[in-house]
């Protein structure tokens, strides 16, 4: 009845890790690529 923590750990671990890594890589790539864009064209559509 009180087992199952290993599955909970795996599920939560995977979820938070994947989202964090995806977010981190996105931000990092964004920083790298914005250097290659001339400042006048760097603005987004917001």
């Amino acid at each position, binding site marked *: 009845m009180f087992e199952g923590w290993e599955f*909970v750990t795996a599920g939560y671990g995977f979820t938070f890790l994947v*989202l964090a890594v995806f977010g981190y890589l996105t931000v990092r790539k964004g920083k790298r690529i914005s250097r290659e864009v001339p400042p006048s064209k760097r603005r987004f559509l917001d």
Partner: protein
Amino acid sequence: MTATDKNFLTTSSKSTKVIGSVALAAGALTLIFGLIVAPPHIEQGQSARLLFVHVPSVIATYLSYFITLVGSAIYLRKKSLFWDRVAGASAEVGSVFCAVLLFSGSVWGRPTWGTFWVWDPRLTSTAVMFVSYLGYLAIRRMDMEPAARRRRSAIVGILAFVNVIIVHFSVDWWRGLHQSRTFEPSDVQIEGWYLLSFFFGTVFFVSTQAWLLIHRFRLSHLESQANAAKLDQLIDLRQSGDLGSAQTREKVV
């Protein structure tokens, strides 16, 4: 370089910082309430805690793919780059959530059903949906004239949404192992700490989705600007007759 220039060297802005803070707070609350405060389930034990990330990941996946559908449809009507990029960015984010959804469901299934995977209608159709959107992301990168590629991607982006509808109704159409929709007036009542944990999980996933979507959108915008800038540079080099040297070429590309 001035301070304002520096602000543009990233895909984040004031709005994403606000959304990101909400996501982080909701993520922390999900962990606290889902892992500590909520008691273990009477039948499922600790593993029921997985539902606090599993069910919200379904919501985030559906929402992302729905945005892809809307973006594709608007692109076909208006031919606006904005909506094409929204559709693409949302499918990227949705597929990450779909991977989370498959994984969290799988580790929940092991203690509950005794197996990581069953060939149940909902699981099977979810896997098919996942692969369909990987196909959509692949066609977006196909080697073709950009306007034609965008149009064809939009058609696939609309067709792929059929999968989402199949996944959603699969539990009604075919009988399988997967329990019916969680938020449905049925014999299963969700209340107390469980409801609160679900709430924080949902806020966490939806705000993370919005945050990721904005960042991916800006990234794809920057990517195309960077490619255009490279092309301009190469054209300039060619006009100045300097393209012959491999060194200059390498510097640009």
